[in-house]
């Protein structure tokens, strides 16, 4: 299985190399190769999912013994390892990447004809980057995949994007790079702190080892968070820089609407569906699990950023007339929920946060795909110019409404399954933040329904039917192709499935979330003791039994 995981990660890259190196590929054959590669990758993802043991908290499918060191030695000194493995936190995001990449390929089926082999090659290279970073068990390996995703996306936006594509791609690249370089320093700082203060001065880059080691560090200053320069706060802020840009947390969201609007449909799907999750995944994996006291100390600031993001994103979405822009701002709002959930620092919130990452990927991916279908036909995304598509494309209208409902957290669909635990978890921590976030939820329903009313219902309005200054005037828009249905149907099915039967998903997430929450509590205890006794004591090692508190409240 360990080999299968490595193969899964690099399968798309092999597909990309085939696409680039085979001379004279045309559009039809290159898109078939891309679909084949992404389907094969997805198949491998499903095999991994089937073999995943829900109750195990250590990384699975990793080379090496169960207790580590995982992986194969890559750079011999310092010991950077090629270590891949999945746990409850990453397994669903891993599979989500596989699903959304098929949607991305299918939604570009007809719309991309310019330099098609390169387009699909970049898309597949991006998939390798994403799969790799969710699977990485080594911080350096994680960071390499993390930054590697920038390059394909930069070219995807810059070469196949909208009219402002160059500005959007540069802006996206530099903004993300600036943040992630600071994150690199944060990661280095974690490794250095672990090396300098752990009992045996071990230099390790392994994420599980660092998480364990940092939670039980015999260094009193590590558990004191009384100033901005306390180690945990300082490192937390460094790590936050990159992930906050990726998520994006308000006020670091300014690159997002531009990049989303200018990116090609597939770019938007992957960007919103998976790349934003990279930020929240990093926040849980590094910020929450390795510097929880920093998170606790900065809770007011972070919760404010998340809540402002939720409400601001919703209000901004309300003001948009461009559908893609609307969905982009709705992402800002929804990602705020995910951050809020992890900030609650309890099992309920953490579970909700992790499942909501998957949910948001599915609904937003589906929404962007719907908008893309409309754009292919009408060459506009203005809500004023399009209306009543129910009469023209009933099936598309169904998908549109369905995924909007999922995003608006209608009970029975997936959004509810994620947002409800997040709010419940947050109420336990801060009722103010939770109440304000609930307003964001209401606003969310408001702008999504408004978009549905304008675009889907009402009399049929099509651009060109009343003014034909554009060339394609009265031409009948083509009906939905099989590929478009194939792109949307699985997403809709999953939206419904998670909504109705969330337990298979939660059962895999719960142990991992409980593990992280336990580390948080452990360090908070150490902190409390340090404050109480002024002569701080090292915390006890983590016990083997993990809290398995379930979501009874649901």
């Amino acid at each position, binding site marked *: 299985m360990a080999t299968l995981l490595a193969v899964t990660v690099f399968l798309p890259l092999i597909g990309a190399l085939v696409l680039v190196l085979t001379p004279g590929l045309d559009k039809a054959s290159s898109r078939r190769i891309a679909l084949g590669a992404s389907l094969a990758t997805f198949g491998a993802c499903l095999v991994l999912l089937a073999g995943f043991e829900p109750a195990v908290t250590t990384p699975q499918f990793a080379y090496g013994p169960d207790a580590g060191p995982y992986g194969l030695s*890559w*750079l*011999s*000194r*310092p*010991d950077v390892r090629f270590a891949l493995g999945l746990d409850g936190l990453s397994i669903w995001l891993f599979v989500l990447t596989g699903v959304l990449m098929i949607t991305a390929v299918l939604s570009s089926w007809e719309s991309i004809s310019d330099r098609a082999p390169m387009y699909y090659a970049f898309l597949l290279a991006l998939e390798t980057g994403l799969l790799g970073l969710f699977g990485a068990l080594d911080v*350096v390996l994680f*960071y*390499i995949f993390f*930054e*590697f995703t*920038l*390059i394909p996306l930069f*070219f995807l936006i*810059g*070469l196949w994007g909208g009219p402002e*594509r*160059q500005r959007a*791609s*540069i802006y996206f*690249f*530099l903004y993300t*790079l*600036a943040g992630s*370089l*600071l994150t*690199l*320093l944060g990661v*280095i*700082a974690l*490794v*250095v702190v672990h*090396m*300098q203060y752990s009992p045996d*001065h*071990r*230099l390790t880059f392994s994420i599980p080892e660092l998480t364990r080691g940092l939670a039980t560090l015999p260094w009193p200053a590590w558990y004191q968070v009384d100033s901005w*320069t306390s180690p945990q706060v*300082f490192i937390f802020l*460094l790590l936050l820089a990159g992930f906050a840009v990726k998520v994006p947390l308000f006020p670091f969201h300014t690159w997002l609407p531009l990049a989303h609007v200018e990116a090609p449909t597939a770019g938007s799907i992957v960007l919103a569906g998976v790349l934003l999750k990279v930020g929240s995944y990093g926040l849980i994996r590094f910020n929450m699990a390795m510097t929880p006291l920093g998170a606790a100390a900065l809770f007011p600031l972070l919760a404010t950023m998340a809540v402002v993001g939720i409400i601001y994103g919703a209000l901004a979405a309300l003001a948009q007339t461009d559908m893609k822009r609307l969905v982009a701002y709705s992402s800002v709002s929804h990602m705020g929920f995910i951050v809020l959930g992890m900030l609650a620092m309890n099992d309920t919130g953490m579970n909700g946060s992790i499942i909501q990452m998957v949910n948001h990927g599915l609904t937003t991916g589906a929404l962007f795909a719907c908008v893309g279908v409309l754009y292919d036909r009408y060459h506009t995304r203005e809500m004023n110019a399009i209306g009543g598509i129910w009469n023209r494309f009933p099936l598309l209208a169904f998908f549109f409404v369905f995924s909007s409902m999922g995003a608006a957290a209608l009970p029975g669909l997936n959004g509810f399954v994620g947002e409800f635990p997040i709010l419940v978890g947050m109420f336990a921590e801060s009722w103010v933040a939770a109440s304000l976030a609930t307003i964001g939820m209401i606003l969310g329903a408001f702008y999504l329904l408004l978009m549905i009313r304008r675009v889907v219902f009402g009399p049929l309005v099509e651009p060109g039917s009343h003014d034909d200054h554009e060339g394609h005037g009265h031409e009948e828009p083509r009906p939905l192709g099989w590929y478009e249905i194939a792109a949307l149907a699985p997403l809709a099915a999953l939206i419904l499935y998670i909504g109705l039967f969330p337990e298979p998903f939660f059962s895999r997430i719960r142990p991992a979330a409980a593990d992280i929450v336990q580390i948080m509590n452990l360090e908070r205890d150490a902190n409390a003791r340090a404050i109480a006794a002024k002569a701080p004591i090292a915390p006890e090692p983590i016990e083997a039994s993990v809290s398995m508190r379930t979501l009874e409240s649901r």
Partner: protein
Amino acid sequence: MTLQLAYQTVQQTLLVLSPEILLLAAALVMMTAAPFVRVSRSGWCGASAVALVASLLALLASRDVHPDAYAGSAVNDALSFYVRLFVILTGLVLLGLAHREPPEDRAAEFFGSFLMIQAGAMLVASSNDLILLFVGLELVSIPTYLLLYLSRRTATTQEAATKYFFLSIFASALLLYGLTFLYGLTGTTNLRALSVLTELPYVPHLSLGLLAVVFIMAGLCFRVAAVPLHFYAPDVYQASPVVIAALLSWIPKVVGFVAMIRALTSVLAFKGPQDELVHKTVLLCWIIALATMTLGNAVALLQSDLKRLFAYSSIAHAGYLMVGITAAFAGGSNASGFYYGTEAVLFYLAAYAFMTLGAFGIVLALRKADGHPVATIDELSGLGWSQPVVALGMTLCLLSLSGIPPLVGFFGKLQIFASAFAATTGDDARSLQLLAVLGVLNAAVGAFYYLRIIVLMYFKQPSEPVQVVGGWPVAAATGTCATLSIVTGLYSTPISRACREAAIAANVRPAADGEAASPAVALQTRVEAVSTAPTPTAE
């Protein structure tokens, strides 16, 4: 010292220096013979290549000769070996780039000067003596004046040569002044002996020692193009041919940083960061590093001339390297086993060689339709579609320069900033952490101007057709650099290991009687304790 030991030391020193001696002999023969024999340009170029290969063989053959460290003026430790090896290999790359540069009638002098520069750079790496160090530095500078003017006798190259000449003389004087202080304070010119003496509490005297450090730093800052003696670089680069710009961006940099390691960090390493002099030196380097990278990156943003852009980019990279030097001073011999400052500097130098020589090679190979070389970045527009392979090589080098993984430039930056983080603990670490934060912000700014070239190459329509010239030597040299940028990024262990050995060797004091080694005890034990991988023991 017995007569026998003296005789043995001289003999061994000469053996150790045989690669340099070979190169110098070849250069002298070429320059002397040139008026009398008729050999084509490619003949002289071939002869230089043969001389470089012979010198490489001599280097490998003399690997096991170790003259007495406190008597010999040359050492053959890992630092000396690996730097010289690397200089010879990049010398072959530079030769490939330069093979069509000089006019037929001055080819012998051109390649002769080039060999002398190579010999000088290698001499610096192997020197164990202040005087030999200075001779090596001058052996780099003086032929450079010739080289600047030899290849093309135009008003612009004249200007470049004059500017470089005066400033270089000035910098050499500063350096020599600093070295005399160092000698005056300790009474020895042997660097190993110096480093042993500095362990005494008041050696060197604080204010005079600081004077020495400041002057030596100033002189070497000119070589590496660091603030405040950086300002010649853009003018000289722009006015000289591309090959010379490539040479100037690489050889003086490696020479300058290796000289810093030999004459300053290794000497002061044993005092430890608590020492007042080291503390002030760290502060000095801190300021130089920050000023250099900030200025380089900020001004590079405004450039549209390719050579000027790369000049400022080379200033910015000197700034990152200075961060490593700062960490080397702060860490001293007690740095943690993560990355030593010296090690990071050496690795970054190697990475820098690949990416910057590759980029210069591509600029060199491109010609506009009228036969002129490309000069501004706009002329690269659309290159991605008209010359895909060349543009791919350029993209690799540029992404590596901006530090994107998995290219080698990323690992360079990782090591530099990691060494800054790991150098010290406690309150001393704060300032270095701040420097690292400012450094990565600089790297983010720096990514913009590299990215701008990539944007032009791929997202813009071609303005005018550009053709690739230069023949197989340029293609081979550039291709090697671009390929190595990615290959050593994916697997950097061999270079990393060599840098590690060199960094340890630079900070080791052999026992005075030359037998059983008693290396820097603190350093070695920490290494054993901390790193799991087997560490090479220094002799």
